[in-house]
């Protein structure tokens, strides 16, 4: 049904075994390659989104935005990062210096590891672990601990309040998020991200989950924005009330780690929305049909390479469309109040996501073919 697609690991392993290496050594040599590639891709993704954010915010406010560092200011985020790297690291005298350092580390590490399960093609991901999307949900719940830790360790009233708000916000939106994912899992009969995308191929754009889970899509998107602390929901760092929330005392590289984590999380959430609801690496018209019309066998090496490339481009394109929407939302919507935020999470999204789950289950019983068998 679905073609196996490119398997770079297999080709790499076979090439090395041709040189006389054992399969275990070949596997060990292969392992770091996709990880480093994904890490570089994630960091470049952050630089691109920071640049987009600056340019789009400038356009929204009828300014020009960065324009001197490189053509159209594309090197501006890199310059900012370098500047933060050589800034003095200030730990307040009254802070708990161990927790103060551990906080940003705990925030950034889970966000990076979450890229483990992001698929760019049938075999183009670091590791297709069985629990896939569930692993991401558990990683995303480590982050509030880091936020709480840095808020508390700063020994600053603004930081403490910001850290508490961040933790409360994260836990309030985690449950609707997990329940929205649960409805997708039910339709895919699997937790693996590859299977979730595989279930959405077949009829191109018509088989994407967004048509079968419109409510789930909205719940997931709202919760993802709240988890990223993006503006309708950026209460933890509401600058008019809390200076910069839990980041108030941070300077230099530790501040940069928060910044990095925030943007990696944004790109990650956008990729996950495209994986869960927008067909992941799938092209709007199935490549099998296109190959059929062009009389090309789907297993031909050229077709495989083109399919793999199209898959990566489609994943990135869908993700950046969502990043664009998130940036526009940030610069055009006002912030909600803390009680409105908690009400939205607990009294609206939570019951709604439970109902969505049960409706999905009922529909799956009634129409097993349309909802994944």
């Amino acid at each position, binding site marked *: 049904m679905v073609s196996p697609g490119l398997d770079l690991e297999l080709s790499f392993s076979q090439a090395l075994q041709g040189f006389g290496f054992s399969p275990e050594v070949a596997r060990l040599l292969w392992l770091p390659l996709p990880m480093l590639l994904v890490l570089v891709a994630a960091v470049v993704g952050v630089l691109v989104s920071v640049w987009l954010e600056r340019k789009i915010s400038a356009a929204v406010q009828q300014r020009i935005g960065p324009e001197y560092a490189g053509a159209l200011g594309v090197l501006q985020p890199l310059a900012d990062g370098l500047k933060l790297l050589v800034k003095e690291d200030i730990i307040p005298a009254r802070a708990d210096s161990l927790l103060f350092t551990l906080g940003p580390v705990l925030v950034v590490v889970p966000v990076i590891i979450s890229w483990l399960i992001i698929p760019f093609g049938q075999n183009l991901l670091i590791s297709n*672990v069985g629990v896939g999307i569930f692993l991401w949900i558990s990683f995303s719940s480590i982050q509030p601990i880091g936020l709480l830790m840095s808020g508390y360790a700063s020994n600053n009233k603004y930081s403490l309040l910001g850290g508490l708000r961040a933790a409360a916000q994260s836990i309030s939106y985690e449950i609707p998020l997990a329940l929205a994912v649960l409805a997708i899992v039910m339709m895919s009969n699997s937790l693996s991200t590859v299977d979730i995308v595989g279930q959405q191929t077949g009829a191109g754009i018509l088989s994407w989950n967004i048509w079968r889970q419109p409510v789930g899509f909205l719940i997931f998107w709202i919760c993802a924005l709240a988890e990223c602390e993006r503006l309708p929901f950026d209460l933890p760092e509401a600058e008019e009330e809390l200076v910069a929330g839990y980041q108030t005392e941070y300077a230099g590289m530790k501040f940069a780690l928060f910044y990095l984590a925030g943007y990696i999380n944004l790109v990650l959430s956008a990729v996950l929305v495209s994986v869960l609801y927008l067909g992941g690496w799938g092209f709007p018209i199935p490549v099998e049909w296109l190959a059929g019309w062009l009389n090309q066998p789907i297993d031909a090496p050229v077709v495989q390479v083109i399919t793999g490339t199209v898959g990566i481009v489609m994943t990135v394109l869908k993700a950046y469309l969502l990043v664009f929407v998130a940036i526009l939302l940030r610069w055009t919507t006002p912030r909600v109040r803390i009680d409105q935020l908690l009400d939205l999470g607990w009294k609206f999204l939570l019951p709604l996501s439970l109902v969505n789950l049960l409706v999905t289950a009922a529909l799956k019983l009634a129409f097993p073919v349309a909802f994944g068998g």
Partner: protein
Amino acid sequence: MFALPGYDAFLGFLLIAAAVPVLALVTNKLVAPKSRAGERQLTYESGMEPIGGAWIQFNIRYYMFALVFVIFDVETVFLYPWAVAFNRLGLLAFIEALIFIAILLVALAYAWRKGALEWS
């Protein structure tokens, strides 16, 4: 070595991910200037000298939310295996989950009624 396939990559990526902040902080330590002069080590409090610390006892209003969160988080974890195996379980599993969720919805309604979900 690994009982489940794919987790050697997880361990490797965990090490790489942990190396990112460590490398960044070490580089920062090596290249950044250090000065202990001035009042930069004071915590920020609107430009004045801070009055008292932040490590005090005060009413955390999110406490009730945290309690309700624990209940629903455990519920979600229980529902995951049900969702994955749903296509093999059929109608009976649906009714069972319906009862399970109904009990929790009653709990949510109770918490709501009791004011645990109110901000003030």
